[in-house]
């Protein structure tokens, strides 16, 4: 009997505890928890005001985790957020979210990728606006000749790209650059640059001071004064079928609007180096994709 009471107590407390948490899915392959903890350094994500990077790696995923929590909180969702690692395949296909098995993702997604699922997914306000996402053409650091390649000679350049990264693919397709299609690990693509199979690869600008990207002891630098605009916006998505979907989405969107109004979104992106001040005066390679009359829906 005593045992039964203890078991019941434990069960009740755990379920109560579970009810007081908000489970946010995260890719198990992209386990940022360590870098996330390092960034927080004991702070509550809600208290983060300074988004300057503490690591040299890509920082946007950490910032998004923090921004998501701040937005939810500001939107009225005060429950503690718990990150739940899930297999990458499920997340890329959004099947769990469409089915309502999964409520929300910790990372933003390209709008283009969820166009056909908008009947099943709530799409938040843009975290990254169209035109704000910039990337560099990274070449091996020893390849000095390519580092100062002028825009007029880009047709000499060969870049490796994954056709499944449709935004990257489209961006490159609107330049004179030669594209080598490769579906496989990101690391292999970097290695292709290292081994001169291709000249360059499209990568987010590094947050380091000299834009240097270091991977496994090898160094890469962007072609100077040239940047690429990735032509899409990024959004958080929430399942429509999930019982809490509507409520969470409402809170998230409210919160995001507040963050945007307060300028926190912009600040976070700038401070984190995602919108990199070092390349603000660099020339766009695919600026034609920007210069259009936007038709308002």
């Amino acid at each position, binding site marked *: 009997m005593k045992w039964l009471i203890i078991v019941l107590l434990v069960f009740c407390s755990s379920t109560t505890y579970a009810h007081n948490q908000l489970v946010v899915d995260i890719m198990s392959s992209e386990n940022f928890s360590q870098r996330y903890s390092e960034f927080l350094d004991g702070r509550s994500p809600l208290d983060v005001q300074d988004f300057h990077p503490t690591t040299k790696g890509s920082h946007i995923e950490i910032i998004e985790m923090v921004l998501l929590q701040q937005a939810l909180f500001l939107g009225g969702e005060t429950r503690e957020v718990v990150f739940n690692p899930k297999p990458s395949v499920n997340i890329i296909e959004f*099947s769990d979210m*469409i*089915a309502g098995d999964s409520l929300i993702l910790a990372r933003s997604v390209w*709008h*283009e990728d969820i*166009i*056909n*699922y*908008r*009947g*099943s997914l709530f799409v938040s306000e843009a975290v990254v606006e169209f035109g704000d996402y910039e990337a560099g053409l990274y070449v091996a650091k020893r390849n000095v000749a390519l580092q100062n390649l002028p825009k007029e000679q880009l047709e000499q350049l060969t870049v490796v790209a994954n056709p499944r990264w*449709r935004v990257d*693919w*489209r*961006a490159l*397709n*609107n330049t*004179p650059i030669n594209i080598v299609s490769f579906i496989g690990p990101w690391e292999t693509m970097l290695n292709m640059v290292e081994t001169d199979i291709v000249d360059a690869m499209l990568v987010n600008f590094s947050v380091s001071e000299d834009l240097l990207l270091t991977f496994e002891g090898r160094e890469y630098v962007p072609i100077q004064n040239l940047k690429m605009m990735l*032509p899409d916006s990024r959004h958080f998505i929430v399942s429509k079928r999930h019982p809490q979907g509507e409520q969470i989405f409402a809170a998230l969107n409210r919160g995001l609007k507040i963050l945007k109004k307060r300028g926190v979104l912009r600040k976070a992106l700038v401070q984190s180096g995602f919108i990199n001040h070092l390349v603000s005066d660099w020339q766009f390679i*695919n600026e*034609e*994709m*920007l*210069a*259009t*009359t*936007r*038709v308002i*829906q």
Partner: protein
Amino acid sequence: MKLHWFAFPFIWLLSFEVFGNLNNSSSSSQKEDLNKMLGHLTTQLKEDYDLNLLPQIRVLREQSKQLGEKRLQAKSLLLEGLIRQHFGDYKNSLVLHNDALSIVSEMNAPELEARIYLALAQLEMSLERFRFAQQLLERAYTLITKSVSADQVEQLRAEYALWQGTLHIMRGSYRQALGILSRADSQQQKELSSKLALTRAWAHLYIGEYANASRLLQSVANEKTALDKNLKLRVRFKLMNAMAYLQAGQFTNAIDNANDALSETFGTRFLNEQSILQNTLAGAYAQLGDFEQAHLYLKRFAMTEQALNLQKRNNKLLQLEAQYTLAAQKQQLSVLEKDNALQAQQLIQHQQKIDNAHLAQQRGVLGMLLVALVFGFGYWRWQNKRYLTVLKQQVAERTAELAERNKRLQALSFTDSLTGLNNRHYFFSVIDAQVNSSALTAHAISSEKHEMIFCLLDIDHFKKVNDSYGHAAGDTVLQSVADILKQCTRDSDLVIRWGGEEFLMVMPNMTHAEATEAVERVRRQVECFPFVVNEQAIQVTCSIGFAPYPLSNEGGNSLTWEQVLELADNGLYMAKEESRNAWVGLRGLSRPFNAPTEQLISDYKNLIHNGQLLASTSYEPQS
């Protein structure tokens, strides 16, 4: 009715052309037939891409070629190219399009040329060669804006916008596509207008703007004729409706529309549309929870994609092969060129060698010539010098010889041949110099009276000797007297054969006493000399007269040596007259004596006797 929607501009164009040509060539029944044929073919093409039309198209082309109807010929080429493109024969389609272009480019028909560029751009787009497509579109745009006549511009601009927008969509620059499409419309052509609207809706759908897309689709739906006529347009319309419904979350509507469209695509080659429709259906079913259907369509989608990819792969492969062939040809060409260049180089080198050899030969010959010339010149100079030396030597020799001869001649001319003594001629040539030097000596030793003695000697009775013993004996006497005179005089004295049997001695630097001694010695030697004539000894004597030089009277008038000589002659005469074998020598003038010189000579004897002239004699003068 299965028709590729890309074909419509051409079909429209062709029909336009047919009418045009009908008007122009009403007179020619053959041309009329051809135009009718084109019209018929165009209508049939609207029904379907019937492969059986190809032979007729070719006949049309041949005939229009024979008639010189270039427009018709180009049109027929485009028509065949269109059919070939539809069936995936991109290579030959490209060739046909380019043939049409080469015909049209000579015709100055910018609108037709622009349309061919647009058609070529579509061809490149279906081959996913976007860069080439862009270049062709730009060419078309340049023609449209600069060369095309005003009545055609609007239409062509709209067509250009349609294909430029399509290209932007294919490259994934949807906003750019919207930018160009939103500014384009065709009021005249409802079908083109519908196509523009559909393409615009397509771009909207790609960026998730389904509401805008729906509005545009509604406008297309209002214009039914275009949709009724054109299958591809209709399929696309339904496809986009389905996509818009899917994006809006109206899954059932999406499925209805998609199924409707899909049923129309069976038996067609609209693989792209099929694949998108199947994907849409899969998406819609999955979101409805009907995973069985979703899976089914996903499988079909995968198969269609596979077929599409295969088609793409084949096209890419063909492109690669073409590129490889071209590269191989280029390589062969470059190898040949290199080979040629090498051979040319070798030829040049060979030629150079020959040239060098020639040059060397020429140099050698030149060098040899030069050496020969230098040698010849040297030899000539040497010979010349030698000859000159010889000549100089000869000249010197001759000069010396001449001098010697002159000397000898002079000597001969100054010498008496019989006695070997100098003659009068010699005397006259040297006497002035002798007189001057004697005057100098006289000044130097003025303390003693040293004078120059002019002494004349004549052999006594010489005529007798000649007459008695012959002229040879006379000559012998003369020679002996001459020898005596030489012995009795000093080397410095002059001994001259004065003429006949007369001799002159000029003895410088001598006192009167010494003169008398010398004269006496001569007289005595001659007197005592054993003259042998014809082996017979004879005695010969001589008479002598002499006078000193210089000789001055009281008045200070000096006598010339000629006058002195005359005085000596007077002395001789006096000695001959008064004694013979004697001498008379004038010592000087007694003082005061101031008779003129002429008197002195003419009155010589008397003056001596008077004592006015001081003279010595070897005998006692007769008074």
